[in-house]
């Protein structure tokens, strides 16, 4: 043995090869053994939904040992693309698919799993405990560079009596493709015609050139960038509520369609969802942004599972169906014990019914 080792030691390449072979030898059977009698599902997509799937999957697979679910946080666009390509059985997305995409892939379902919201946060030393009032046109002005200073007349008009500093605003946006950019830009587009006509909305948009504005990666990057930069403003997914509080950022009250300024909480998010329940079509592709109603918080959205109606075989189809039915069930996946941890809101009863109907069509 000693001789063997010393011989190996004298040949680094042989040594590396031996190590690689050993690794393969150990890893191979490990993967193979589970693949033999288990159904393997791949979930990939939205990084906002990723933490929720990671809460769901261990509990679900413990109760259903015949299913193995791999989760990946890759981005909503990737989630949709890989669900269409058949690489992932479940694609997670913060945005519903466009008509153009649906025309190309008519078998794909957009199934809401929960409701999320977004906050607009700022870092103005001395004012972070005050909930400033902001509306769509003012935010559009900030992100297009027309409103440059915190004490701009438009911001002062919304916040009478608050002493705003004469400091340059640093607007922070997401550099990576993001469902948060999608719903934020929809809020701007739906509330401000000039934004709708020039920039529009999407998971990556052509941000107007604003000197001093910066791009950040992911929600953690947004929190960090706004914490590091006094007088900045950012839009952040509500799942990051705890991080926002820890960073000491201020949260804006946003104007809704009815002209009221609200903070997101279960009541205002629920009210906005309730307004659009009746309007949600059977395929459930609808924006919940800028909902009507006195108590409706303006930036909320459905979090979607993007699933091909026709799965590879009945075993896989059954596994996907059962997992998703579990996920939207208020006793299991949609229970507060999961959703509260990521600050999501459960689906309203009628939306659950629509989702269940779509899930049951998977075959």
């Amino acid at each position, binding site marked *: 043995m000693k001789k063997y080792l010393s011989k190996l030691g004298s040949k680094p390449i042989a040594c590396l090869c031996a190590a690689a072979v050993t690794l393969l030898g150990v890893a191979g059977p490990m993967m193979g053994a589970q693949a033999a009698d288990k159904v393997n599902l791949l979930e990939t997509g939205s990084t906002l939904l990723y933490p929720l799937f990671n809460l769901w999957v261990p509990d679900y697979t413990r109760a259903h040992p015949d299913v193995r679910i791999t989760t990946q946080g*890759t*981005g*909503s*666009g*990737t989630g*949709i*693309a890989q669900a269409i390509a058949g690489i992932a059985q479940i694609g997670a997305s913060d*945005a519903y*698919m*466009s*008509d*153009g*995409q649906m*025309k*190309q892939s008519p078998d794909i379902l957009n199934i809401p799993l929960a409701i999320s919201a977004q906050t607009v946060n700022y870092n103005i030393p001395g004012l972070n405990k005050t909930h400033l009032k902001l509306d769509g046109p003012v935010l559009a002005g900030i992100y297009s560079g027309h409103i440059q200073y915190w004490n701009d007349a438009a911001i002062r008009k919304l916040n009478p009596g608050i002493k705003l500093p004469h400091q*340059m605003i*640093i607007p922070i*946006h997401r*550099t*990576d*493709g993001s469902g948060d950019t999608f719903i934020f830009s929809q809020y701007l587009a739906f509330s401000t015609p000039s934004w709708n006509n020039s920039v*529009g*909305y*999407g*998971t*990556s*948009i*052509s*941000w*107007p*050139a604003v*000197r*001093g*504005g*910066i*791009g*950040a*990666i992911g929600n953690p*990057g947004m929190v*960090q*960038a706004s914490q*590091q*930069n006094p007088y*900045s403003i950012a839009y952040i997914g509500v799942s990051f509520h705890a991080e926002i509080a820890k960073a000491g950022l201020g949260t804006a009250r946003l104007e809704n369609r009815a002209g009221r300024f609200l903070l997101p909480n279960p009541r205002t998010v629920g009210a906005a969802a309730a307004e659009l329940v009746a309007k949600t079509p059977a395929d459930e592709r609808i924006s919940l942004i800028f909902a009507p109603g006195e108590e409706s918080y303006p930036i909320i959205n459905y979090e979607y599972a993007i699933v091909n109606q026709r799965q590879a075989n009945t075993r896989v189809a059954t596994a996907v169906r059962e997992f998703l039915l579990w996920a939207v069930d208020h006793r299991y996946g949609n229970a507060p014990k999961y959703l509260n941890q990521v600050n999501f809101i459960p689906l309203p009863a009628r939306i659950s019914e629509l989702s269940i109907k779509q899930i049951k069509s998977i075959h």
Partner: protein
Amino acid sequence: MKISIFRLVLLCLTSLIPVALLAILIFLTHYSWSAILFNGVHFLLGKTWSLGNLYANPVMVHGLSVPVGANYGILVFIMGTLVSSLIALLLAVPVSLGVAIFLAEGVPPGSRPVLSLIVELLAGVPSVVYGLWGFAVLIPFVAHHLAPDLAHLLGFIPFFAGPVGSGYGLLSSSLVLALMVVPVITATVSEALQGISREAKEAAYALGAMRFEVVWKAMLPMIRTSLIGAIILGLGRALGETMAVLMLSGGALNYLPNNIYSPISTMASFIASQLDSALGDPTGMAVRSLAEIALVLFLIAVIVNVIARLLTGGFGRAVHN
């Protein structure tokens, strides 16, 4: 007979490399062809990048289906890539030369392997580690100390004048790129210096040269080819660096940097950050335009290498051999 089989195998293996290179070029050109037709020269000169409205019905432009308002101009990313890489080289080359000379001439031969190993280890650190360090440590330092100080000291030069920004941008990206490039250049140059024969050095000493003069006037000119090769190797790494730059660049869109503190975007990092959204384009034009960026980046890398070859006379030498 045995020899000829051996030769055949070697020939096959060797030809894999140019074939792979050619395959990449052909694939990129083929894949991005509709984007090349749609974008034209505007692609290289335009400052505006917009995926257009992916939720509206696509329109037909010159017989190609594209999203409404799609506009793909990458001048901002080309400039971001070239400027950040050049600044990184300006910072990295003197440092690398110093380290390489020290390794080759300044340390006792006994401890040289240990120090060389450390330099090579630096070259092997994954770029995302540099990115994370830059994100957590460098950006606050640049924003609060380095950038204001630089603007104060060199503010009379327009490129260094404020506003100093937020730390995200050209300066931070270039600093991290320089850090990643230093070990690459150092390793190559120090190896070349150590390869210089003792006789050559002793000849220079015999002419009465000081130690500095031996290094500067005799040794460095002797390794000119390796030096330029090393710099190009470093430039290649800087041009293609994706993750670290993505985390530090500030993701500039639709405007060119006006000073060294300004946010930028590079071609490689932009492809990485934009791909997910581009996948949502039902016409596929967005992904194909990203492939066209990759093609341009590929061509820039080839051009840089050819220039380096010409500078070092590499082509001529290859023929003579």
